């Protein structure tokens, strides 16, 4: 047999049951956490350098694959920059369809992080029920774009495929079902005693430090800062929709998760408005020329995790000169070490999960006991099952 028939499965720093790898060096004194250092770089793919070798249209598919869960917002941010440099515009129906797909993605991403947080606190039943109900949103995305996860739907000039009345009525039925279930889950999160003991008063970030340390997204909205790019700097069809900005004031893990749960209800209302107001017309305007003039553009969009910034410099030609991507998890995880003060060792996975880590997650921690001067490696699974002594 030739070499291509052998399949290799590594079981290394990337654990099959969890997400991507990250390393946290936690210094403890007994049980209390003294300091945390974040070590990353296991997954560096060189996407910024690779973008300089592709043409403008090939990059629309490459940058949609930076993140699997928020792939439509990455494509939207890239395409917004390119349309600004190239001098073309998407028609109104395309803007509404782009917003529809981005809001569907926000719902499924928030359901996913709520389920993962429930699992990290040991509440496996809530995790399983949320994941079962999330499948219906993935199915709605599949009937609009053709795939459950990676949409490949947004290109410079518009969108690729259209919807009809049949598909829209199916999506409305799914939304009614999800709204009923989420009301039940919200009641569980607000009243359950395990969740209240593990989530309230943990990992507090004050309002004045939240902006100084450049944190973004639901992380700062849970500390009382009123900022949302969909309202400050509207793009796509958000300028014509009616929704509320959700903030909570306590600044702990519970308020960050409650911001996400309430945003699910706002997204459901937004999709209903989109379906009612969808204008007629073409789904793609003038196509992007293959050679673009020199220029520069900066675009910001609101991903489910926070603010995403793309800065593209073009020197004219078929390829970009420099593409810079600043993802929200980059700021949140690396600057979020201020939230681990005064916490116990078993709270560290819960605090890390409340930042919604996308590009990286946990494989294991290195625990450095300051008193005994000893360092050992502890898997995260073992920390989750430990009982919290207060």
């Amino acid at each position: 047999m030739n070499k291509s028939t052998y399949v290799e499965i590594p079981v290394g720093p990337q654990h099959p049951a969890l997400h991507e790898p990250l390393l946290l060096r936690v210094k403890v004194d007994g049980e209390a956490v003294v300091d945390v250092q974040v070590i990353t770089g296991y997954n560096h793919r060189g996407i910024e350098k690779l973008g300089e070798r592709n043409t403008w249209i090939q990059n629309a598919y490459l940058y949609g694959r930076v993140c699997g869960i928020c792939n439509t917002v990455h494509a939207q941010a890239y395409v917004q920059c390119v349309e600004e440099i190239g001098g073309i515009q998407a028609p109104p129906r395309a803007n509404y369809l782009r917003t529809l797909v981005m809001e569907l993605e926000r719902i499924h991403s928030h359901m996913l992080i709520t389920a993962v947080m429930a699992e990290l606190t040991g509440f496996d039943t809530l995790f399983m029920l949320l994941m079962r109900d999330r499948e219906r949103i993935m199915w709605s995305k599949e009937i609009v774009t053709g795939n459950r996860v990676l949409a490949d739907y947004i290109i410079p000039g518009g969108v690729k495929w259209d919807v009809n009345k049949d598909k829209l009525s199916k999506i409305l039925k799914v939304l009614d079902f999800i709204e009923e279930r989420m009301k039940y889950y919200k009641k569980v999160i607000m009243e359950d005693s395990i969740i209240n003991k593990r989530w309230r008063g943990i990992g507090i970030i004050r309002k004045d430090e939240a902006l100084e340390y450049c944190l973004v997204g639901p992380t700062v909205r849970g500390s009382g800062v009123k900022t949302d790019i969909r309202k400050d700097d509207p793009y796509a069809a958000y300028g014509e929709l009616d929704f509320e900005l959700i903030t909570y004031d306590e600044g702990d893990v519970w308020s960050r998760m409650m911001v996400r749960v309430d945003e699910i209800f706002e997204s459901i209302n937004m999709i209903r408005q989109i379906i009612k107001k969808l204008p007629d017309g073409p789904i793609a305007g003038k196509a992007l020329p293959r050679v673009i003039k020199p220029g520069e553009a900066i675009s910001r969009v609101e991903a489910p995790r926070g603010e995403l910034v793309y800065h593209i410099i073009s020197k004219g030609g078929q390829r970009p000169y420099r593409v810079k991507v600043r993802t929200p998890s980059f700021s949140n995880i690396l600057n979020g070490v201020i939230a681990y003060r005064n916490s116990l060792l078993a709270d560290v996975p819960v605090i890390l999960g409340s930042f919604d880590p996308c590009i990286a997650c946990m494989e294991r921690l290195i625990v450095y006991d300051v008193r005994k001067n000893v360092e050992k490696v502890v898997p995260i699974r073992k920390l989750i099952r430990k009982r919290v002594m207060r």
Partner: protein
Amino acid sequence: MTSIDDRLKPIEGLFSKVSKLRDNRLIIETDLEKFKELVKKIKGSYTSYLTSIVATDFPDKNVFEINYNIWVFDHQTMFSVRVRIPRDNPKLPTIIDIYPGGLPYEQEVYDLLGIVFEGNPHLREHFFKPEDIKGYPLRKDWKGE
């Protein structure tokens, strides 16, 4: 929207040129000597936060160009502070005493482009790069293996 001169009144005299990409994106160019004072004045006069640091290599003009993208809430505008430094001596002062959240951004620029931020004690190589990649990949004359 207020005019561009009104928005820039508190930081007058510290920059050399202003251009705009669109209504709420302004590019403010300045020299190396006045740059740290300008950033300190922006932090003091407006409610703002640093969104990103973008560094580009221009080997034909022999400079590195570094943009500090700061979002200002008072005028809902992005101020993009732009500084150019010579390519054979890439050094400039750090801003982590003004915006402490800029530390990972400076670490990434040092790791991938080799620009030294004076006054930042946490810079180290291989923060993002894997261990077997040598040199500074985002420079235009980097030859990969």
